[in-house]
C-alpha cells in the first residue's frame, strides 16, 4: 500500500496508507486529512481539493492538464507548476512515499 504524507500549511504532517485505485482526494478524505474539502466529490467542478506535489514527485503524478488548470484558477491560494486537484491524481503503486503540501485555504 503506497504511503502518503500530507503536510498542512502549518507544517503538521499526516502519514497515511492509501488504497490503490483511490484518488489522492479520496485517500485524504477517508483519513480525515484536514484542509481538503472536496465539495463536488471529485468531479473537477469545485477546486476545493488543491494540493502542491512536493519535489520530484510531480514526475510520478504528472502535471495538471489544461482543463484541470482552468479549474485550479478558482482556487484561492497561489497556483504553481506543482499544483494539482487531488481528485484528479489516481494513486498507483509507484507513488509509495509521495509527499504533498496543502494550501492555506480551499475557499
Amino acid at each position: 500500500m503506497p504511503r502518503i504524507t500530507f503536510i498542512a500549511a502549518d507544517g503538521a504532517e499526516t502519514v497515511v496508507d492509501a488504497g490503490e485505485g483511490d484518488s489522492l482526494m479520496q485517500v485524504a478524505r477517508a483519513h480525515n486529512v484536514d484542509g481538503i474539502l472536496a465539495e463536488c466529490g471529485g468531479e473537477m467542478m469545485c477546486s476545493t481539493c488543491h494540493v502542491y506535489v512536493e519535489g520530484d514527485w510531480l514526475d510520478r503524478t504528472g502535471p495538471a492538464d489544461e482543463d484541470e488548470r482552468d479549474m485550479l484558477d478558482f482556487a484561492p491560494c497561489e497556483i504553481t507548476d506543482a499544483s494539482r486537484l487531488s481528485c484528479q491524481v489516481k494513486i498507483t503503486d509507484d507513488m509509495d512515499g509521495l509527499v504533498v503540501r496543502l494550501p492555506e485555504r480551499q475557499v
Partner: protein
Amino acid sequence: MERVVVIGTGQGGFQLAASLRQEGFTGRITLIGEEPGLPYQRPPLSKDYLKDGNDARLLLRPPDFYEQQRIEIIGSTRVTGIDRTTMEVETGDGARIAYDHLVLATGSRNRIPPIAGLDRPEVLALRTLSDARVLRDRVEHMRRVVVIGGGFIGLEFAAVARARGIEVAIVEGADRLMGRAVAPMTSRHFLDVHRGWGSSVHLGQFAEAVTDAEGSLAVRLRNGSEVSGDTIVLAAGVIANDAIAKEAGLATDDGIVVDDLLRSSDPNISALGDCCRFVEPVSGLVARLESVQAATDHARTIAARLVGQPKPYAAVPWFWSNQGDRKLQIAGYAPDADDWHVAEADGKLTVFCFAGDRLASVETVGNAGAHMAARRIFANAGRVPRKLLETADYDLNAVMAAA
C-alpha cells in the same frame, strides 16, 4: 449563541456544521436527520455507486471528523415540529431539543406522479442511499427497465443501465429531455445520445398506469401504448421538504422563503439547499435549486452570518450531470432564456443561453474550459451583454478579458 440545531444530515447540513467550525464557532452543533448514519453525497448514487457499490466513498467525512469537530449527529430521527416561541424542535419520539439558532436543511423528496399501480415492489425510486442499494442489487438481474422521467437523475440512471446491456425505455411527459433545466439544443443533443446508446425515448408521453403483463410489468402511456419492463424507476422530479416550516408559520412557496442572508421569515431560523427558495444573485430571479453548489454555498453564507460576519449570498450557480461518457456542465441560471447560440466543434458542444440581450447561462458538453470561463464571467461581471459575445466571436476567454 450557544447551540445551533440543524434539521437534515445531507450535503447542506453537513457543510453548515463544517463551515461553522472552520469559522471558529465554539458552541454546540447538533444535526438531526431522518436517515441513519453519517452525511454522504448523493450525486454518485445515480452514477458511480451503481457501478462500484462503494459505500465508504460516499461519506462526506469519516466518523472521527465529527468527534474531533464536536459535531453531534442524531440519526434515524425525524423532526415533527418546530416551536418558535420556546425555540425548540420536537422529534418523532417526543423529545424536545432547544436551539438558539435553527437551520432547516431538509432537502427535497421525490415527487410521486398520479400513476396507478406505483405501489408495486418493482417500482423503485432514487433519492437516498437505501434507495440506491436496492436499485444496485436489482441492476444485477434487470433485463428491461422503464424510467419514468427524463430529467438528470432518470437519464444518468438510464445511461448506467444501458452500459450494462439492460434494455431501457425512458418516458417523459414534456416534449424534450431535462426540459426545465436546459436549452432545447442541449435536450436534443442528449436525445440523440441516449437513442444512439439504444434506449427508446418516449417524449410527450405521460405514464398513466403500471399494470401486470405476462410475467413482467407494463407502463401504459396516455396515447394508449404500453412499454414493458421488469423494473420501473421513478424519477419524476422532487418537491421541497417545507412542511414543518409551513406548519410553524414560516413563509413558504414551494420551498422555505429566505432573504439574501438565507434567513427565513423568523430571524432565528435559516434555510438552505434544496428546501429553500432564494434570490439567485446573478439573475436576480427567485429560485429553488437542487445542486451541491447551492447547498454548500448557502451553508457558508449562513455560517459566516452566525459568527457575526454577514455577507449577502453572491455565488454563481453551477451544476453537472454525467450521462455515460458525456459530462454536461451548466454555469449560470436561465429559466428566462429566450434565445440561444450553439457552437459545436471537435465533439464539444457549447450552448449560450440569452435572456433578452444578456448572457444568462452557458451549457457545455466536453468543454470544461468554456464552463470555467463562463463561471468567471458571471462572477466578475454578471449577465454580460450579448454584444460582448458577438464582438468576441463567442470566445469566452476573450469575453472574460473584455468584461
